[in-house]
């Protein structure tokens, strides 16, 4: 009797706790299921949308091949671009292995980009040539193949073959093993097969086999593998080290604590620098300077010092940067845009080729606004593109070019400039007009040879300076 009296309250309490815990777990389960279903719906919507857009792409490419007139073809190509970017947006939200994401995403982006390059040519009066036609035929076939594969996957899905977020099955294993999380970086442990069924393997296999695509556009396979324009005889590491003295601002204040080799477009030695006053033996570094293996140029310098209260303004910083560039042998540079943030100013300098501002040949300099020290240099763009160009002579005069402008623009300044073309594959000599429209500022570029309007940039004044959009 006394025993029951002792155990009854404890038993009741335990039962109550267990019941509360049970209800709580049950509610949690419902909330989780709702979230999983919402995510599932989102993923499946994106997948279905992607399949729809790919079908549209293949049909529009077909129409583009059949039509005889350029205006009609331009219409189809602009729609291809629209559907390709929509398909890519949808596709990128799907939890798929990185390799598949990369290859299929690239196919979609290049298809859209290629359509735009055709559109641009046709707008400039250049009709589709045989090569473009072959490429279009190939893209048509590949997008049709992709559409069919997506339909297969869609069929698998509707038959219940796979789910983007398979619901967690309660089993003994789920007690000690964490369920796979879709959206976690694909690791070796989590193979694509566990997540999605075989259909995607087929997509991956055919996407991997696609040939290299070369055309006049920013996503062309040719643009990624550019060689630097400024190069020279190979420099040994021992020869590169003394160059630091010439290039690095305040070089005497540093000592090298480590050297790393850098591959890529601009192979270099990266010297890790610590203040000369720091205790010896450590390998922590506060600055790095990269010297190109070919030619021994300064590729970049970066000091990570946090700056104090500003005492130098942007104009003074411009002069400091200019003086530094002159001191390391880049005398003919003009400051373009500048930006001051958080006690640092970043100023871009462009090469001045006898009065022509060569925007592609750019060096950026970062100046500390507390004491005017040079905190960073980035000459990568300059090294990639600077070469001796044929004399830059405009065919049309500044006045003739100005006539081509939208009449309501107020011209504030005009000068000759060399700008990259829209595809990012060449350069154009243009008259640059700094104009105001209402209270907005625009840079308009008129081709100095043909008089065509090449580019419009809006200049944004922010707290710290100007940047272009």
């Amino acid at each position, binding site marked *: 009797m006394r025993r029951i009296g002792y155990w009854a309250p404890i038993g009741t309490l335990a039962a109550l706790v267990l019941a509360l815990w049970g209800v709580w777990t049950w509610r949690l389960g419902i909330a989780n299921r709702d979230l999983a279903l919402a995510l599932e719906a989102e993923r499946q919507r994106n997948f279905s949308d992607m399949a729809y857009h790919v079908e549209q792409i293949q049909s529009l490419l077909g129409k583009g091949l059949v039509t005889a007139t350029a205006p009609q073809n331009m219409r189809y190509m602009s729609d291809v671009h629209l559907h390709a*970017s929509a398909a890519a947006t949808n596709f990128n*939200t799907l*939890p798929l292995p990185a390799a598949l994401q990369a290859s299929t995403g690239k196919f979609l*982006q290049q298809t859209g980009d290629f359509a735009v390059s055709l559109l641009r040519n046709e707008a400039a009066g250049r009709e589709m040539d045989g090569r473009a036609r072959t490429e279009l035929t190939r893209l048509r076939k590949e997008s049709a193949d992709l559409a069919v594969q997506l339909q297969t996957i869609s069929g698998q899905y509707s038959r219940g073959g796979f789910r983007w977020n398979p619901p967690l099955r309660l089993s003994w294993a789920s007690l000690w093993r964490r369920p796979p999380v879709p959206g976690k970086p694909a690791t070796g442990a989590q193979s694509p097969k566990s997540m999605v069924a075989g259909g995607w393997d087929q997509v991956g296999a055919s996407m991997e086999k696609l040939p290299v695509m070369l055309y006049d556009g920013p996503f062309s396979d040719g643009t990624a593998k550019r060689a630097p324009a400024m190069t020279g005889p190979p420099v040994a590491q021992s020869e590169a080290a003394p160059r630091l003295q010439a290039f690095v601002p305040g070089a005497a204040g540093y000592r090298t604590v480590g050297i790393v080799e850098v591959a*890529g477009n601009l192979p270099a030695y990266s010297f890790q620098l610590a203040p000369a006053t720091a205790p010896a033996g450590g390998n922590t570094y506060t600055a*790095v300077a990269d010297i190109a293996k070919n030619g021994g140029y300064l590729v970049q310098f970066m000091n990570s010092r946090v700056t104090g209260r500003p005492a130098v303004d942007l104009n003074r910083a411009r002069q400091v940067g200019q003086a530094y560039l002159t001191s390391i042998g880049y005398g003919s540079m003009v400051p373009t845009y500048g930006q001051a*943030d958080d006690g640092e100013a*970043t100023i871009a300098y462009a090469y001045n080729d006898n009065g022509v501002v060569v925007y592609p040949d750019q060096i950026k300099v*970062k100046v500390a606004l507390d004491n005017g020290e040079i905190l960073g240099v980035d000459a990568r763009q300059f090294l990639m593109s600077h070469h001796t160009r044929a004399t830059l002579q405009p065919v049309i005069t500044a006045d003739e070019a100005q006539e081509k402008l939208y009449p309501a623009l107020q011209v504030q300044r005009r000068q000759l400039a060399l700008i990259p073309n829209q595809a990012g594959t060449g350069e154009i000599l243009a008259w640059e007009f700094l104009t105001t429209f209402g209270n907005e500022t625009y840079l308009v570029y008129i081709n100095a040879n043909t008089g065509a309007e090449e580019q419009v940039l809006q200049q944004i004044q922010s707290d710290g300076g100007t940047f272009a959009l």
Partner: protein
Amino acid sequence: MGRRIASGFLLVVILVAVAFPWAAMAAPRPTLYWGRSGPNVRLAQQRLQAWGYYRGRVDGVYGANMYAAVTWFQRANGLTADGVVGPATWTALGEWSGGGAGPGGRGVTRHDDVQLLAQVVSAEARGEPYEGQVAVAAVLLNRMRDPRFPGTLAGVVYQEAAFESVANGAIYQNPTRNATRAARDALNGWDPSGGAVFFWNPSKPVSPWIWSRQIIRRIGNHVFAR
């Protein structure tokens, strides 16, 4: 606990940095707190009322209702809920007039890009050398220009399975000051990664496919590749 204090301190540092940009302080609005009155209080009340935070009368007097509304608004906007309408709160209200966007700047700012980029850098590259933090930010920007990846910053950041910090939520923490500086440097064109579009920590499990990429360099604990 120590971490909480540290992150609280960090938040203050960031708030100070955001609230007092040394660059521009043209005609700032006055700081509002309990007991203040005037047209600026009226303006703040109108704003808060329009968004449903303020339920009282628009009378230009900072009272109890206003205090409740301001702290609610501050909490909802990730600001320190102290009831003081300073530069940060004025900015969040869309009424900060110190400096600000000049001609043509309406609706266009790089601030959101800097913030998002800084969050990723802070979560993915905390404790890395500064150079490595800039490189991580540069990888994200390089991805925007690469056909294999989405074309917008948010697209790149939130791409499925792209970043562990997005999957585990670490990205939503306040970025460190260095991460913010690194993000800004990368947006200004710095790229210590040498054009890389992948980075990973070799000591963590990664998909074997990633090792087939062309490695450009190593900075700190990260390998950068194309």
